[in-house]
């Protein structure tokens, strides 16, 4: 382990690196925002990819495998990576205990990025929960290519909306809907997305974080003949295509159902091939 705790860089695109934690603060009652110094990771990462985090062992909490987290923000200039994560169980609980000045062992970047560069002029994002983290870097990357982004962000309450400021600072338009305000039901989101497609030239749909919203976006995609992608989750072992633990069901292009690895063929998949759950 000694050699490992000194890892800082690697000649390989994917690397296990030990990164200083710069920040690990609450953004609301459920989520924390983690910033690590990771020049290697920041240099190689693309939107939609994830890192596999070695959450520390503390007392009874001993996460054996790493935990996958989407990159929330890639700061290539400063060599930093940011994550936005919800505390749900063992690993995220110990991750939440990390303090600035401590280190975190990360493996990545891993997985397939969003592929909108040549296909989109106006990306419509539909995100909820953890999906807000996953979709955030799309706006920044799209902006650099002159692609417009509108993000429809859904959450339980306004307090649980995240990344609104960040997305706006990247020139994305942001539409927020929440359960507490009664604006987040599928029908309401459907009206918004239809308008974006019909009136605003929305031509590429990305979604993450909600099964109901995935079903909606699949339906609208089919109806309008618009391409799109979804970022999916599954419990992972290696995160690197080796163990086949992270498979989910997909519609095979040749018909029927097939298993694919979320970490390797994904986590970003064609929206119509995804099987909703």
């Amino acid at each position: 382990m000694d050699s490992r705790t000194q890892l800082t860089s690697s000649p390989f695109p994917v690397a296990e690196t030990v990164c200083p934690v710069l920040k690990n603060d609450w953004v609301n009652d459920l989520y924390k925002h983690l910033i690590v110094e990771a020049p290697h990771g920041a240099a190689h990462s693309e939107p939609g990819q994830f890192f596999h985090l070695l959450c520390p062992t503390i007392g009874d909490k001993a996460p054996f495998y790493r935990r996958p987290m989407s990159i929330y923000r890639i700061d290539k200039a400063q060599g930093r990576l940011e994550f936005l994560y919800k505390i749900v169980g063992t690993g995220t609980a110990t991750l939440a205990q990390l303090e600035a000045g401590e280190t975190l062992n990360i493996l990545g970047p891993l997985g397939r990025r969003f592929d909108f560069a040549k296909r989109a002029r106006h990306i419509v994002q539909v995100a909820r929960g953890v999906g807000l983290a996953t979709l955030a870097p799309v706006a920044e990357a799209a902006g650099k290519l002159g692609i417009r982004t509108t993000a429809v962000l859904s959450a339980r309450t306004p307090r649980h909306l995240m990344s609104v400021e960040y997305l706006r600072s990247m020139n994305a338009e942001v539409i927020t809907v929440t359960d507490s305000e009664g604006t987040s039901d599928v029908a309401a989101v459907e009206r918004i997305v239809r308008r974006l497609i019909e009136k605003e030239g929305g031509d590429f749909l990305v979604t993450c974080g909600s099964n109901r919203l995935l079903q909606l976006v699949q339906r609208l995609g089919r109806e309008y003949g618009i391409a799109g992608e979804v970022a999916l989750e599954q419990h992972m072992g290696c995160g690197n295509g080796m163990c086949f633990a992270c498979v989910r069901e997909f519609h095979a292009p040749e018909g029927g159902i097939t298993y694919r690895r979320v970490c390797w063929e994904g986590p970003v998949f064609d929206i119509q091939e995804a099987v909703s759950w």
Partner: protein
Amino acid sequence: MVDMRVRIGSIELKNPVMPGSGTMGEGLAHVMDLNRIGAIVTKTITPDKREGCPPPRMVEYRDGSLMAIGIPCKGPDYYIDEILPHYREYGTPVVCSVSAPSVEAFGNLAAKLSVPGVSVIEANISCPNLEEDGRAFGMDAEASARVIRRLKEMTDRPVWAKLTPNITDIAAVAQAVEAAGADAITCANAMLGMAVDVESFQPALGNITGGMTGPCMRPVILRMAWQVARAVKIPIIGSGGMASANDALEYLMVGCSAVQIGTVNFIHPTAMLDVIEGIEAFCRRKGIARVSELTGAMRSRKEYREQQAA
């Protein structure tokens, strides 16, 4: 300089450390240089195409995990055309793991896969997910021997027999495959386990049972490697629960000539490099010139005491 080379029958490895079948993939080449390890061992290939076990496929424990993957496989042609090319470019021998539902099919598959770029056939007669209740060829000494005999007829490559640990007398199976002509023995595959999700009253794995692997299994599999080493003369490749050089040294000392690292690759993809370096450092510190001297270097406690006193 420590001579790290080891000889497994007719082939020589540059060092004794390789991955376990099913615990590496192309992804590993994105993280490290595959020229540095002793061998590349590919995931088991079956004659037919398979999707593998239904998810959920894993349960995590404090010091190991239960995985029920099955053998997702796109068949031997896909292996030759799509998988093997990734590994051919390295100066590292490729060990091709095979499994089949009958002795005949085992032989045909090995013949088909004995293509340039494949240096060794490893017979996975031990995979616990294929047959009902995890029963496999490897649970029966005679059936194991039949598979190995057939493989020896059908391929000119060295054949390694990978045993199952789900067995009463592993030494008996080891002797049977040795007599059948196996060039080496891999000891061993995963132990069959299961878990229940008590909240839902359901099995935690889609397949109900799965293979328990990782550091916590090391003492049990190490004991089996020691039993096998006392029973046969062919080389043994240890496989079970190694996470560090120290763990690998245990296997070498009880009689293994090489080791396979499995589950820990999932957590630290460069773990094999640490193990190689650690073994080398140990040899240097102890003044051991050749890593092969470690094979079977364990002495009995009494011997040791006498020697210390002398």
